[in-house]
Structure formats: structure tokens, C-alpha cells
């Protein structure tokens, strides 16, 4: 039986050679890190589905629905997205536990859009040490744009500083002799904002004639407002969270102080701030936005928003389109899909960061027309543009050009 044996060996060796040849060829084009295969890309996410910030859990649900749509349409370059989302209850220690679970137990390719400044700060060091991308974090702090020290972390939404610089630019142009009074919340949000304003005003920093800070524990901010009025300022910038923004608008009307009033984007909600403060008191207030408002009828015929509404109807019928978190979740998930598409067959963690840092003029459906995402190896701040808006009647009117909050221009 030697002949048969020889044939068998020959067949086996051919098979081995053939296998080696094909796999060698495949290795040349396809590159994978943990979490990516020929058929699947595993993505981790951490959201506060429970606890004090559970209202934001909708973002995670929107993202899950978005990836369900991607999978139904054939996936990204033929690979299905496996979206693993865990609850951290807005608690940093729990976020660390969940991040470690995602990386070490679920073995995801990257951690996408974890929410909250404290939670992200808690996991940043770990993910950077493990060289796992912490991509498009859901917080507006400026510190996420730090490619030198944290090359594996990237933000998404405009930072508080970018937004503040836009107000500074507007004031320099429209009201160069303004006497500015600032009320800010004494925490990372308020301080980030204040820094942005001062950077934006630059040499004209003397326009600020008064600064007052308040603690979130204070029941009312009335005394601060009265004090600011007495300085004779004619411009009032309110760096406040919704409850206090509404209080300020009311108090201004009560003491008949009518300065140029700017509120931060955080508190630009019609339902959460303007309505409780009284529409009649809120007329003429200025703010800025970067995304379309699902509740605003002016976008009903917008092609991007039509896609968004169609998506909601089919994949997330429970979603409330007035909730800004849906627009946010859709936009950020679309950005990730774009990055993964750009990665092609090279799904290494390094390439994911490289592609995320080379987005050029990308415009997700839910962002305002003209707002585009641009990144580079030295610029980890995807959205830096906003448009000014003025409150009129019962809604915001956008006006002027899209303005960039980058310090350079």
C-alpha cells in the first residue's frame, strides 16, 4: 500500500501548502486586533441606564438601534456590528469595572461613546495603558482633546471652550464696546467655559467687568443677578445648567434688567428652560447649536432629518424625537460607522485611531447644515463649529454663518 500512502501524503501536503498560501495572502490584506474578525466587529459601550443621569441612557438605546439598522443593511464592509452596552449608573467605580469587563472579558475592539466626565476620567488611564480606543466620549470637557498624553482618547461634541469662544467672537464683532457680566457654575463645566470666553476675547479681556460664581447647592441665584446688574453691565452671559438658567431669565425680567443675554447650549432646551422661565421673558436670548432639533418643524423636509425620522420609525419607534439625546446618539453612531468603513480590512486598534484622526469634512445627518467633522493627528476635537441662534416666539431662529470655535482662526 505504499502508493496509497504517498498519494495521501501528497494530498495532505498540497492542502497544507494551499492553506498556507491562502492564509498568507489573507494576512497581507486583512489585519485584526482583538474584537474584529471576518464576520464581526465587537464594540463596547458604557451608559448610565440607571441612576441620577439615566435620562441619557436613551443615547445608548439609539446607538444600539442604529447598529441594528447597519446590520440589517449588510453591516460594515460585510462585517456585523456586535454592540455590547453596559450600565454604570453614572458611578465611576462601576465604570471602571464595566470597562475592564468589556476589554478583558468581552474582548471588544474599542470602547465607544462612554458617557459622563467623571466616568470617562476614571477609565481614561486604564484604556490608554491597554491601548484600547476610547472613542467619541459623550462629554463636553475640553480635556479629551489631548492626543499627546492620551493618544487613545477622543471626544466628539463641541467642547465647552469651543462654544464659549464662539460667543466671544460674536461679541467682538457685534458689540465691541460691551460691558460683560458673567454668572458661572462653580465646577468643571463652568470653569472650562470661562476659560474659553477669556481665551476668545484675548486682548479684549477687559470687556468682562464682573464675574460671579454660584454653587449647585444654592437654592436660588437671585442675589448674584442683582449684584451683576448693579455693575452697570449691558451684556449678561449665563454659564448655567437648566434649573439656574431658567431662574436667571425670570429674575432678569423681574428686576427689569434688559442686557444682551447669552445662555450656554446646555441650557438652550425649549421645554426644559425657556418654557418654565416664560416665553415672554425669554425673547431675544442668544445661544448656539451644532445639531438639528427634532422638534423644530423647519427640519421636517431636510433630507438628513428625513433619514433620521425614517430610522426612528423602523428601528426605534419608542424614541421621543423631541429628545436631543436621540439626535446626538444617531450622529455619533454614524460617525463611528464612517470610521469603521474607512478602516477597511485593517481593523487594528491603531488603525481605528488613525482613521478617527483623519476625518475630513464628514457631515452626519443630524448636524446643522455646514457643521462638519474634521480631525487630524494633532486635533482630537471632531466638532468645533456651531451656529448662533436667537429665541423668538416659541422656538430658536438660527442666524449668521457657521462659526468655528478653534482658537487659531
Amino acid at each position: 500500500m505504499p502508493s496509497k500512502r504517498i498519494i495521501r501524503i501528497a494530498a495532505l501536503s498540497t492542502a497544507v501548502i494551499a492553506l498556507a498560501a491562502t492564509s498568507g495572502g489573507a494576512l497581507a490584506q486583512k489585519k485584526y486586533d482583538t474584537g474584529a474578525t471576518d464576520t464581526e466587529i465587537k464594540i463596547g459601550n458604557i451608559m448610565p441606564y440607571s441612576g441620577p443621569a439615566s435620562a441619557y441612557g436613551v443615547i445608548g438605546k439609539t446607538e444600539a438601534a442604529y447598529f441594528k439598522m447597519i446590520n440589517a443593511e449588510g453591516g460594515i464592509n460585510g462585517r456585523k456590528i456586535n454592540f455590547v452596552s453596559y450600565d454604570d449608573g453614572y458611578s465611576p467605580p462601576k465604570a471602571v469595572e464595566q470597562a475592564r469587563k468589556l476589554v478583558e472579558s468581552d474582548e471588544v475592539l474599542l470602547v465607544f461613546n462612554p458617557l459622563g466626565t467623571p466616568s470617562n476620567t476614571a477609565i481614561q488611564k486604564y484604556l490608554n495603558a491597554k491601548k484600547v480606543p476610547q472613542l467619541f466620549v459623550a462629554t463636553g470637557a475640553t480635556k479629551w482633546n489631548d492626543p499627546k498624553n492620551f493618544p487613545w482618547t477622543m471626544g466628539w461634541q463641541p467642547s465647552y471652550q469651543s462654544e464659549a469662544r464662539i460667543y466671544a467672537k460674536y461679541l467682538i464683532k457685534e458689540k465691541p464696546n460691551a460691558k460683560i457680566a458673567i454668572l458661572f457654575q462653580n465646577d468643571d463645566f463652568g470653569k472650562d467655559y470661562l476659560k474659553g470666553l477669556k481665551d476668545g476675547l484675548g486682548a479684549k479681556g477687559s470687556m468682562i467687568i464682573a464675574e460671579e460664581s454660584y454653587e449647585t447647592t444654592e437654592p436660588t441665584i437671585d442675589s448674584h443677578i442683582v449684584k451683576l446688574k448693579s455693575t452697570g453691565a449691558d451684556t449678561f452671559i449665563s454659564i448655567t445648567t437648566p434649573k439656574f438658567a431658567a431662574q436667571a431669565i425670570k429674575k432678569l425680567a423681574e428686576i427689569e434688567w434688559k442686557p444682551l443675554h447669552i445662555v450656554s447650549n446646555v441650557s438652550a432646551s425649549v421645554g426644559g428652560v425657556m418654557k418654565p422661565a416664560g416665553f415672554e421673558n425669554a425673547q431675544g436670548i442668544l445661544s448656539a447649536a451644532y445639531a438639528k432639533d427634532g422638534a423644530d418643524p423647519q427640519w421636517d423636509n431636510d433630507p438628513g432629518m428625513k433619514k433620521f425620522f425614517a430610522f426612528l420609525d423602523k428601528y426605534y419607534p419608542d424614541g421621543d424625537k423631541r429628545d436631543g439625546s436621540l439626535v446626538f446618539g444617531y450622529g455619533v453612531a454614524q460617525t463611528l460607522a464612517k470610521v469603521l468603513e474607512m478602516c477597511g480590512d485593517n481593523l487594528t486598534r491603531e488603525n481605528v485611531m488613525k482613521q478617527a484622526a483623519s476625518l475630513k469634512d464628514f457631515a452626519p445627518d443630524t448636524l446643522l447644515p455646514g457643521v462638519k467633522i474634521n480631525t487630524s493627528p494633532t486635533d482630537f476635537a471632531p466638532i468645533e463649529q456651531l451656529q448662533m441662534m436667537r429665541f423668538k416666539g416659541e422656538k430658536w431662529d438660527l442666524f449668521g454663518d457657521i462659526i468655528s470655535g478653534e482658537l487659531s482662526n
Partner: protein
Amino acid sequence: MSAVQEVGTEAPAIEAVPKRAMTLGYGTSLIILGLLILAPMFVKHFITFQLTMLLIYGLAVLALNILTGGSGQFSLGQSAFYAVGAYTSAILMEHAGMNYALTLPISGIICFGFGFLFGQPALRLSGVYLALATFALATAMPQLLKLGYFEHWTGGVQGLVVTKPDAPFGLPISQDTWLYYFTLVVTIAIYIFSVNLLKSRSGRAFMAIRDNEIAASAMGIDVALYKTLAFGVSAGITGVAGGLGAIAVQFVAPDSYTITLAISLFLGMVVGGVGWLPGSIVGSAFIIFVPNIAEGISKGLSGAVFGVLLFLVIFLVPHGARQVAIVAQQLIGKFKK
């Protein structure tokens, strides 16, 4: 006279637990100890990290158990002591460059002082009123940590990032494994201390106060002193747990130590069995793993699923893990016959 009547007619809040029933036998203790020592050799680093957290929360539950199970006082404010311990360790490590192991006794001592002082006004309160007063402490703590005056040290809302220690003497084990064994040694030391404390004269005084305050004072026990002492010891142990927690998680922030943590610890104590020290580890496992299980069952309704599981536990085994242990013991006893 009315005060006497009140105390006399009030049903005891805590069921009296004889002190011998508070611990495990030597054999069982050794088996559990062996399992805890061997565990990290067979599991992933992530599980080792979870086991470390299990021991840390176990310590915090144990501390509450001494207070409630031992001296009969309620506390919903343990998260505040935990936070003080965590911040003390973090600040000493990051600002003063102190060795992590040395920060723990300091955290313990500071929290002991803090708890002892808080025990003074708490003396006038008992039962639900005391629970409310400690609740106030827990709600106030995160905001105090955010205050601008301390921001230079606490890092304000941003919190403090802590560097994780490497294994010493060039031991060929990972940071996680080292930290686990370090935590295990601290936990065992504190466990032995607690068992001996409850068996000592002071422990008997705690239990006498728990069972009947008037009778205890008639026997010559300084009720005020021992009540505050129980608070101090409990806070001190919680502080050490907090310090260990800060090192393991590598981050402290005000949002880590909200009232939710205090309630979790309370829940852990009840599930583990009030007054049964080994139950602390079981309770700690409940508060760490059951929310994950609940989330696995339903993401949208994880809170409700957790509630149902908790309800089942309380309904089926109202005395927690202690009851399960007693039943198991009786079964084994039958087999032996």
C-alpha cells in the same frame, strides 16, 4: 417616665444574635481562606479585580455589621466614611507621595475620629431617627467634596486619578493579583480583629446595649462611650475599605460616593445576615454581581429585575446568608448521624 416606657415597649430593632453564632467554625474558615488564596491563579485579571472589589465591599459591609449587628445602631451614612477614607488615601498618595500601604492606617484613624465625633450627636437618636441623621451625612458628603475650598486637594468635580501600585520586590505577578493578595491580607487582619473585638469585653458591652440599653447601663456599662466607640470602629474599618477601593479603582470622585453606595452597603448587610460577620462577603457578592445578572436579564428593566431578585431573597431567606448557613449545617449534621 415616658422615655422609659417608650424604650421598654419598643420592639427590639435587631434580633439578638448570640456571639458564638457570629462567626464560622475553624474548618469552614480554612476552606474559604484556601479558596480565596487560590482563586486568582485560575481566573482572568478582570475576575481578580472583581474579587478585590468583593473583599473591599465585604470590609465595608463588615464594618456596618459591627455597628448594626453588634451595637444595634443603624447607619445609612457609611458612604460618607468610605469617601473620607478613599480621599484620604488618594490625597496622601498623589499630593504627599506617600506609600499606598501607609495611607491605609491613616485613613482608618481619620475615619475613626470622624465616626467617633459623629457618634456624639447620634447618641441622642435611635432607630429610624438615627438612620435619618446618618442619611443626611451621606447626602451631604458628595457636595462637600466638590466645595471650592478643598478643590486644590480633592480635585473638585474632576476627582483625583490614583496610580496603581506595582508588586513589590520584583515579584512576577501582575498589579491586579498583587493588589488582590494585599487586600486579602488586610481583610483577614480586620476580620480577625472584628471577631476578637466582638468576643471581648467591649463586644459584650455592644451586645448588651443592643439587647437592652437600660439593662446595660444598670450593669455599669458606659452606654454613651460604647455607642460612640462602635461608630468609631465601624467608620474606621469603612475608611480602610474606602482607601483600598481608591487604590483598586485608581480614581476618586464625588460621584463615586453617593447615597446609592450607602444603601448598597446596607442591603449587603441585610442579605448577608445582620450580625453574622462571614455573611458580609456574601452580601458584598450580592451587591456586586446581582446588578450585573439583572442587567443581563433585561437592560431596560434592570432595576426592576434587581428588585424582584432582592424581594425573593428577603421573602425566602429573611435572615440572609446566615439562615442558609444554618440550614446547611443542620443538613450536614443529619448526614453525620
